[in-house]
């Protein structure tokens, strides 16, 4: 409850929220306020164990046993939790060399991940190797801009999913990075990479306008930003209109708080990324209201970041 307490304390409208929280119809579909908590990782790279205690910067950090404990603590405090990963789950420790991803995917399933996207290193056991792992995955692999026709992954991934939680409809889709020059042709086989910009525009519009999702999340392995004109999360945020949040990966960027971009619709798109190796777990708490004038609500956001604990 610590987070909720400090949240209330630090918000000027805390009293209003408190009142809304005790509203008698809160649990019904017609209640005015709804909440969701998003937890996320990226580029865990097979770090099932903590980093070795060798006196280095990351010594003792990370590991699935610590991450799982933290996640269950948060689940105990918040009703509606989504747990997401932005790719490169695999490759980087001898676990992967020996077991080709089985314990990584099994541990994620035990932790109750809701969805992930595919990173370039998730091709490292070959496309057939990744396809085999999906039998251990209790969550969908989302990637909208790879065409897996005539590959072992055909019909085994999805461009997006819609999760209904706490009376909210959350649309989640995935974007993968250009494979040519990054992943060996033998590993990605017949996978066809499509430009993520038009794909992101079309899928996010579908989720928001046709499917009427209350929130659209993009799981991206494109990378946070580049000095060149290579397509990044920043590009996607600026070029699209309907994405509320991009959970990114690939560039191993430690963002201390999410970046905010003005999107093509004039609204705000957030981008977050939590480094690599599973040493950090990201958390975003969203409050939703039903209301005729969403822009009024959107104009104020509360930021209580830079707290690191757990």
């Amino acid at each position, binding site marked *: 409850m610590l987070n909720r307490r400090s949240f209330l304390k630090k918000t000027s409208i805390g009293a209003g929220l408190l009142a809304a929280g005790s509203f008698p119809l809160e649990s019904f579909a017609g209640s005015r306020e709804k909440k969701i908590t998003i937890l996320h990782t990226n580029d865990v790279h097979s770090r099932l164990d903590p980093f070795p205690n060798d006196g280095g910067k990351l010594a003792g950090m990370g590991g699935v046993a*610590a991450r799982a404990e933290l996640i269950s603590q948060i689940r105990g405090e918040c009703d509606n939790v989504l747990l997401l990963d932005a790719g490169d789950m695999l490759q980087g420790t001898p676990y992967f060399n020996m077991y080709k991803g089985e314990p990584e995917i099994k541990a994620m399933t035990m932790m109750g991940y809701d969805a992930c996207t595919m990173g370039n290193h998730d091709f490292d056991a070959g496309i057939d190797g990744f396809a085999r792992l999906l039998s251990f995955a209790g969550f969908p692999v989302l990637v909208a801009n790879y065409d897996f026709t005539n590959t072992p992954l055909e019909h085994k991934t999805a461009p997006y999913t819609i999760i209904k939680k706490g009376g909210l409809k959350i649309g989640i889709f995935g974007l993968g990075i250009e494979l040519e020059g990054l992943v060996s042709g033998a590993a990605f086989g017949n996978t066809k990479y499509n430009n993520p910009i038009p794909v992101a525009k079309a899928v996010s519009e579908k989720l928001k306008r046709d499917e009427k999702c209350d929130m659209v999340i993009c799981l991206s392995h494109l990378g946070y930003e580049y000095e060149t004109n290579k397509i990044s999360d920043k590009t996607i945020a600026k070029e699209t209109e309907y994405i509320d949040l991009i959970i990114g990966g690939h560039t191993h960027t430690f963002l201390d708080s999410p970046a905010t971009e003005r999107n093509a619709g004039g609204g705000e798109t957030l981008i977050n990324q939590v480094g690599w190796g599973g040493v950090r777990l990201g958390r*975003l708490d969203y409050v939703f209201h039903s209301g005729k004038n969403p822009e009024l609500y959107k104009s104020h956001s509360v930021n209580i970041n830079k707290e690191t604990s757990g």
Partner: protein
Amino acid sequence: MRLRLLYTSILLLAVTGCHKPYYISQHSNRHYAVGKDGKTDSSYTRFLAPYKLRMDSTMQVVIGRTDTNLTKAQPECTLGNFVADAMLQAAKQRNSNVDAAVCNYGGMRIPYINAGNITVGRMYELMPFDNALTIVEVPGKILIQWCNHMAAMKGWPVSGISYLLQDGAAEYIRINQQPIDENKIYLIATNDYLATGGDKCSFLTPLKATPVNLFIRDILIDYVKALHKDNKPLHPYIEKRVRYAE
């Protein structure tokens, strides 16, 4: 009153049958340092135990030591010099005419190895990919292009090559202390990932490449073991192979 409101909402839902829209009104964020408080869920430790047991029996074996902190940095670093030197040595053992070695910076997957013992597992973490050593026949002109590519990427590990970084390009390129002869064919040891065009090295793909049936990781393991056998630690140092122009 409350009851009426409830009935109205049920009626509305029944009539419309669709999801009532909600709008984001606020958001907040924080992050957690995983493992900082030392609390773990022991069921995961139990789940990992059988995987770990088999893995550790192979990976915890000490193969040698380093008396220097090996760090990953650009333009030149101790970790990179160790990798490139080991690659060049292994290539020369198979073909003494090999001129130099090049490795991609992103191919090294850990930020440091502290001074002390080196285990098999640490080498797997440094070089987890099953990439094989490959000897590529590179015309001088293409080698200059490659050095410029490395410079644009802010410096990659090399052995037998040196250059200055200036405005994102490579200047004063030397191969074994000599300027590059544009018409000569150089034998460069690298990994099959780069030789097949990885990390934007598409200029290498048309060249003749001879694969050596050796993983880069095994080359590193053998290099550390051989030094250890002679009672020597690893001791790479920065020797201005790649440096910024003053």
